[in-house]
């Protein structure tokens, strides 16, 4: 199963003791076992960096945040998507009430790849299969 990991999945995995930490740990372990093929994007990693280093949020130093990003890139079989589809994202942005950054990320998800996220806004988008980590884990049994 191919899954695109959204910003909130990486953050729930990295941050200690959130409600979702345990299930995100299980998901990462299953990825390391080769039971999922993970995808993510440079935009997602930019957001992870921003949240970790923001002085209003986690206040990590630049070097500490880079260490986390390097660790993320070491996950088994990761495909990092660099390409954005701005025109498609703008079109989606016009048609929906979803914010532009969400639209940019959604349009990066390749066909036949499940968008793994906790962001309920993204569940409303047609043409993209969206699942929570719990649902992804359930589907592999």
């Amino acid at each position, binding site marked *: 199963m191919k899954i695109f990991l959204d910003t909130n999945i990486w953050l729930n995995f990295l941050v200690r003791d959130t409600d979702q930490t345990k299930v995100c740990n299980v998901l*990462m372990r299953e*990825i390391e076992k080769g039971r999922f093929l993970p995808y993510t994007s440079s935009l997602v990693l930019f957001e992870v960096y921003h949240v970790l280093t923001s002085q209003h949020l986690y206040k990590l130093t630049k070097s500490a945040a880079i260490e986390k990003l390097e660790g993320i890139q070491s996950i088994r079989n990761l495909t990092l998507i660099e390409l954005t589809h701005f025109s498609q994202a703008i079109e989606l942005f016009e048609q929906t009430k979803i914010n532009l950054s969400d639209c940019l990320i959604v349009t990066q998800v390749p066909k036949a790849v499940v968008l793994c996220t906790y962001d309920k806004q993204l569940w409303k988008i047609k043409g993209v299969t969206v699942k929570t980590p719990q649902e992804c884990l359930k589907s592999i049994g």
Partner: protein
Amino acid sequence: MQRTLTITKQWQIYIPEEIRTLLKLQPTDRLKALVKGKSLTLVKEESPIMKLAGSVKTPPGLKVDLDNIRDYIDYTGDDTP
């Protein structure tokens, strides 16, 4: 615990079930091989990604909904190093 393991013609070794259970080994787990003199020690190694699990502490007083984190990102601001 001490067990004798045999090397196959393909240079593979079989890890007995009792050792697998004791060390909670799973298929695709990584083991680091340490050689010293004539001894070979295999040490269970956590993957680099799993070492990061829960590695970020929440600063005191910070309440943030990570599931909807984009609501907190100010793309126009510059509050990062």
